């Protein structure tokens, strides 16, 4: 399982990477952590004629905080993101999701940008991006544009990134709200495997324990991760009583059109979707309730 031959260049900056992308046409790929790209190259499922290595670009490795948003450079390691205490406090879903991502070795190389750009439908970070309405900053030789997560994940392994674009950084909204709770869960065959179904939620409660803001999403159906803003809005004002929770979760599961594969049938995935939506919303609620 040796990859087909390719040329290798290192970009010293994002601008240089974009220039290389523009020049080289469609048969080039960017490589950062390589955790998703390399297996595909080893199996010769993909055979770029050139790899542009952006992994050493320091400007793409950072964690910074703005007023309402946490910014992560595209090449920031997943393990660095999981370790960061400030991120754990301000964007708790990232650490929670990363606990389900692969294994320690893959998180030490995999990057946050790589996961989003690869867009595996069962990956965890794209789901978090959807649920938090993350903004994805992409650069090309023509300039920079910001893409909302909502339109970013077009389909399995397909994003809205143009061929000559390089993902530069991701902006993660930080929720204010004293009583904010969040949860991430998934069912997979083994620990660390891609999710059969995954779910994540974030909720804010008022002093009476009523929901004032909610967001949740589901993934693993084989297409792209989904968030459910309209359904989440139905939770506002409630205390996530059984009736409203069940109806929101089942409506969300019905919106999913999962495929089946050798690991899980479509029917099982749909069933799991409702179960996990309820679990993750309840867990987020319980965490929020535990806050003074």
């Amino acid at each position, binding site marked *: *399982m*040796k*990859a*087909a*031959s*390719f*040329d*290798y260049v290192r970009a010293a900056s994002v601008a240089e990477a974009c220039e290389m992308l523009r020049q080289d046409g469609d048969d080039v790929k960017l*490589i950062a952590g*390589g*955790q998703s790209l*390399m*297996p595909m*190259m*080893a*199996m010769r499922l993909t055979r770029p004629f050139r*790899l542009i*290595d952006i*992994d050493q670009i320091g400007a793409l490795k950072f964690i910074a905080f703005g007023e309402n948003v946490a910014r992560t450079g595209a090449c920031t390691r997943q*393990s660095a993101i999981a370790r960061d205490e400030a991120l754990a406090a301000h964007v708790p879903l990232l650490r929670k999701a990363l606990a389900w991502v*692969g*294994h*320690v*070795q*893959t998180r*030490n*190389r995999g990057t946050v940008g790589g996961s989003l750009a690869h867009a595996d439908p069962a990956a965890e970070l794209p789901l978090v991006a959807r649920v938090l309405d993350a903004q994805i900053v992409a650069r090309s030789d023509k300039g920079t544009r910001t893409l909302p997560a909502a339109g970013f994940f077009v389909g399995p392994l397909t994003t809205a990134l143009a061929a000559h674009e390089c993902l530069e950084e991701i902006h993660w909204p930080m929720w204010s709200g004293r009583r904010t709770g969040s949860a991430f869960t998934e069912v997979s065959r083994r*620990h*660390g495997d891609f999710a059969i179904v995954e779910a994540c939620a974030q909720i804010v409660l008022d002093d009476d324990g009523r929901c004032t803001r909610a967001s949740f999403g589901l993934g693993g159906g084989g297409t792209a991760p989904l968030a459910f803003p309209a359904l989440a809005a139905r939770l506002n004002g409630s205390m996530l009583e059984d009736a409203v929770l069940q109806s929101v979760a089942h409506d969300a599961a019905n919106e999913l059109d999962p495929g089946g594969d050798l690991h899980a049938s479509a029917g099982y995935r749909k069933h799991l979707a409702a179960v996990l939506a309820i679990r993750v919303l309840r867990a987020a609620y319980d965490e929020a309730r535990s806050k003074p």
Partner: protein
Amino acid sequence: MSETLYPVTLEVNGVLHTARVPARLSLVDCLRDELRLTGTHIGCEHGICGACSVMLDGEPVRSCLMFAVQADGHKVTTVEGLTNADGTPGILQDSFCEKHALQCGYCTSGMLIAAHALLQTVKRPTDEQIREAIGGNLCRCTGYQQIVDAVKHAAARLGEKGR
């Protein structure tokens, strides 16, 4: 037309090596075939089994999922680098022998790297923490039981030595 070769400088187990390699040569193939450090093994070449685990700049990674050119300028530690300076087994390796934490030995180098990485940051790991740390290293011989025992044993011994 032959393949383009790229210069690569790696510090492996404290020793600086230079080589000229094709871009497509994986780090594990570079370690094994160019540098003749055959203690690191290949099990799947698609990033699942963990037999190829090495330390890169102090953290465990899968060397089958890196090209050697990507490791240029970096520090690598392989299983051969876990021994004492005089070549005798270190405490972790010796604990693996004491608890018979291996049989065929093929996954062992990767296991040692994963366990070594864990013990760098968690001094007295629980069973659960050990299993999580080696969760990306597959073994078909041991059922993991004696490996967990060995890591706990090593942690206790390292603790006694104040490490």
